[in-house]
């Protein structure tokens, strides 16, 4: 079950949002202030998103959003809600990577659609991170020669050339390549290229 972290200092609204999101099937955790959210222990391996009020006492909604990249366990997509239709803040929020920006009073359907998008995004990013982690581990497990073979394959070198450079037989090169492909979880060269050449997301970044 996905978690929605609701951060709003207005108690009646916070309670109402909790009821609405619970009824829609989410687990809801509520906080009065940005600080409360950051000190709470983050539950692991559950898709989550933040429903964040722009105007918070102390640390503002925007400030919290900016701080998330420094708190990997708490870094999830943000849906902003605001009582003022302030163009400057909304632009700033979206530029900083907010998933959605909604103004109060919020229509229930719109809110649930935005939350669904944010949670889906969280799952996508999580998968991407997991794959990236896997890839890094696999690369680290390669021997130095296997690394060289991998670089050669990516550069389009022929087996014969690599065999000559590395002082091994062509058959050795071929079996190295098969082992590398297995370790990296690909079956064809194009997939290998895609895996290694696409820009890899850094932790905390957004598409």
């Amino acid at each position, binding site marked *: 079950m996905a978690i929605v972290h609701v951060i709003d200092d*207005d108690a*009646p*609204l916070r*309670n*109402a*949002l909790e*009821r*609405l999101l*619970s*009824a*829609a099937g989410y687990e809801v955790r509520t906080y009065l202030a940005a600080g409360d959210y950051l000190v709470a222990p983050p539950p692991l391996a559950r898709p989550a998103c933040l429903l964040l009020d722009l*105007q918070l*006492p102390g640390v503002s909604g925007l400030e919290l959003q900016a701080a998330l990249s420094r708190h990997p366990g708490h870094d999830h997509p943000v849906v902003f*809600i605001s*009582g*003022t239709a302030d163009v400057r803040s909304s632009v700033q929020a979206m530029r900083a990577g907010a998933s959605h920006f909604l103004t*109060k*009073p*919020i*229509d*229930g*359907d719109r*809110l649930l659609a935005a939350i669904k998008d944010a949670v889906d995004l969280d799952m996508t990013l999580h998968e991407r991170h997991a794959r990236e982690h896997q890839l890094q581990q696999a690369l680290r497990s390669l021997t130095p020669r296997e690394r060289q073979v991998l670089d050669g394959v990516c550069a389009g070198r022929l087996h014969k050339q690599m065999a000559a450079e590395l002082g091994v037989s062509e058959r050795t090169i071929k079996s190295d390549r098969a082992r590398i492909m297995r370790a990296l979880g690909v079956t064809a060269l194009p997939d290998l290229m895609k895996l290694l050449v696409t820009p890899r997301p850094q932790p905390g970044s957004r598409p």
Partner: protein
Amino acid sequence: MRIRLSPTNHRPASATSSRPACKWPVLAAFAAVLLALRAQHRALRQRRAQARCERNELARASRIALLGELSASIVHEIRQPLAAILANADAASLLLAQPAPPTDVLRQLIADIRASNQRANDVMHRLRALLERREVQCLEVDLLALLDDTVQLLAAEARRRRVDLVFEPGPGDVVVLGDRVQLQQLFLNLLINAMDAMRGTAPMARKVELTTHQRGDGQVEVRVSDRGHGLGSHAPATLFAPFFTTKAGGMGVGLSVARAILGAHHGSLHAAPRDGGGTVFTVRLPSRHGTRPAAGPLAAACPTPDHERPRA
């Protein structure tokens, strides 16, 4: 005037003799003067009433301008309960679609909707008195309750500007005689000015303190202090001059209206620099403390709007 020669001496008869024949012209002249005076008095009363009316309208215009400055936070204060009501209503729709709708949750939800509605209502109620066109009243006013209400009115705006607005009332009750709306306008003005003065101050240091203190001379002292840019080189007297303002887009009427309101309430207003930076505005008003009977100016007539009283 006829001069009669008496048969025994040649002295002429006195002009102020009470003989009926000489009375009417005098009486006529007297009557004419009386009528003229009465007409003049009536005209003066009319002019005074008109001036009073215009002053009232100016005070009202100034009030509306004040509330205009608060409009962003007022809208926010009404939007919040509306947002809670809508979210609760949408939650109720979802809950009712469940096979076994949780009636306890729904009951609480409905109670919350009513509470939110009341909250929005309170905001509008607070504003209505300030916005409507009305005659100046003379009633007993619970000053501490008035100040508390004013602070409530400004709470959202203070939050918006990240200002710490602190109200420290003195002990006991304080009663003043006068017009509640005008008094509230006066304090609204001073408090908003205090917040405005701190626009350039670091958020951590933005503090406005509102305190009351019962003096021994039958007056209550209300102080508004801020940690803003201070009076600078402006002499305190110029602050109250009509149309003087340091605010971009300011009308400059707030303080001169404030002073007029205080004059009408037999009170006074002073501005002075604050120790450690900023400004302190001190309001003095005749008051009654607790249940002691009124003494001095309070027992006298109500706010006199007919003329500007000199500052005490």
